[in-house]
């Protein structure tokens, strides 16, 4: 079943001369890890705002077409109801955290929903353990490092037990090692808890290997949609100008040179290393 689906979706922000997204029809199946990428201003963030109802409920503008989240028509359901299904993690955790302790931040959404105390305790603890923020529970979020803050932001979304988590460039403020840790936390949520992940990213070198589905947007439209191994090797991907991982590019260049590399196209350095080792050993 599609957990998120849009049908001929066009959205124009109030006062804007032209639509930010045009005739977008796409499906995201339950349990997928979907990467949404494309040049800046292509409509990625606008599309994500539709999934949990920020569009049309919070932003003023003109909406045509339909958004279905978990079968619910987003236009007909309030954001607090949709928040139970779709959690959003922003680029900069500073914009998301505000409580005096990590634990209170993680509990905030549940308090608002009026979840019983015992249940709240259980869900908050679980969310903190999964994101490895349990030991930080009494610390004020603003004193934590960027990576720790972003894990707290993910914990507070996780405590709501949404079916879908949407993350909009969640690691761009983080050092590479902290970024890697965040992506691994997200990947584990997807694999072990079957949470559907939608990740908006430019940096495919870091993320393509986790994805089972990729949507490339360009000028407000879906330009490419499919399996990352196929989409990222297409000439269209290079023409649109997305950052195809270096391992994938190296594979393409060597294939053009007539080097016979076997297997599916690599998305990570690990996959490319294995392939090259094969060729270099059996030459």
């Amino acid at each position, binding site marked *: 079943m599609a957990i998120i689906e849009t049908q001929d979706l066009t959205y124009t922000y109030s006062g804007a001369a032209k639509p930010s997204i045009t005739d977008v029809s796409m499906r995201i199946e339950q349990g997928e890890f979907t990467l949404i990428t494309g*040049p*800046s201003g292509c409509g990625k963030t606008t599309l994500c705002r539709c999934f949990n109802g920020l569009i049309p409920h919070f932003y003023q503008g003109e909406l045509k077409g339909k958004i279905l989240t978990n079968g619910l028509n987003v236009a007909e359901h309030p954001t607090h109801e949709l928040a139970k299904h779709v959690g959003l993690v922003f680029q900069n955790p500073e914009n998301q955290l505000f409580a005096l302790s990590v634990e209170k931040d993680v509990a905030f959404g549940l308090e608002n929903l009026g979840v019983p105390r015992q249940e709240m305790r259980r869900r908050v603890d679980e969310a903190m353990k999964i994101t490895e923020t349990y030991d930080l529970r009494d610390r004020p979020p603003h004193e934590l490092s960027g990576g720790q803050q972003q894990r707290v932001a993910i914990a507070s979304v996780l405590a709501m037990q949404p079916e879908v988590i949407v993350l909009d460039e969640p690691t*761009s403020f983080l*050092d*590479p090692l902290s970024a890697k840790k965040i992506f691994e936390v997200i990947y584990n949520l997807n694999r072990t808890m079957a949470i559907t992940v939608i990740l908006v990213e430019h940096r495919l*070198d870091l993320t393509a290997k986790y994805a089972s589905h990729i949507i490339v947007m360009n000028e407000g439209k879906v330009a490419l949609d499919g399996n990352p191994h196929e989409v990222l090797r297409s000439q269209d991907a290079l023409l649109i100008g997305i*950052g195809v991982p270096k391992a994938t590019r190296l594979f393409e*260049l060597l294939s053009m040179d007539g080097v016979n590399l076997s297997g599916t196209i690599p998305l990570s350095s*690990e996959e490319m290393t294995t392939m090259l080792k094969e060729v270099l050993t059996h030459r």
Partner: protein
Amino acid sequence: MIETKDLHFTYPNGVEALRGLTVTIRDGEFVAIMGQNGAGKTTLVKHFNGLLKPTRGQVLVDTLDVTKTSIAKLSRNVGFVFQNPDHQLFSETVEEEISFALRNFGFNEDVVENRVTWALNLLSLTQYRKTSPFVLSGGERKRVALASVLAWDPKTLILDEPTIGQDYQQKEKLRQFIMQMETQEKTVIIVSHDVEFVAECNPRVILMQAGETIADGEARRILSDPGTLAEASVIPPQIAQIFIELGGQLPKLNLPKQTIDLYEAREKIRKILAGKT
């Protein structure tokens, strides 16, 4: 030239952000400062235009001691683009934003007009000339902040995380622009977590950890040394990872270790395959 000598800086809350840092950046150099969140990277570069003053030690910018020189005077020569553009933007339109500093520095109106048009064009912002910066996307606001500094043509340019929110094409433009600055003998200092971008630019890399430098040298050397990088929470770029890994698994091939560039990697692998088959 920018020189720090035994630079210490402690924030009012007691956090010791810099612990005796000595570094020299010559005119016309392109330097990337990398390292863990909280290593002191931004604190360091804020000393270069006098936004912060040393707690102990010395910072000299073109032989001027920053503690004895006004920010106004320093900033004419050292342009600073913040990590978060919202800390920098305040005007009603993109055009006003870019012309603000130019007018402050007392340029003629026709020079202001020329520089604004030039900067808008350079950063693909011409269509937003009359738009409010605040309705633009994060990546676009970042470019407005950059344009407003480039417009006054400072001798040294400091860019704090310039690639955040930028797509591949914008990054490529930024890279070409920095190369152009190099040919004009301008000094460019970036603070960046973006290893792939830094690998493509191949600048001098200063690696910081806990308020000190732990490595300083050519990108190809620093970014292909996983041990030192790990101390600074940095991961090698993909091409370097492939060569490090292959070098470890196939020691007899004598693979060149310091490889971080895609096209260089292609040539080296081709050569090995051609030479031995």
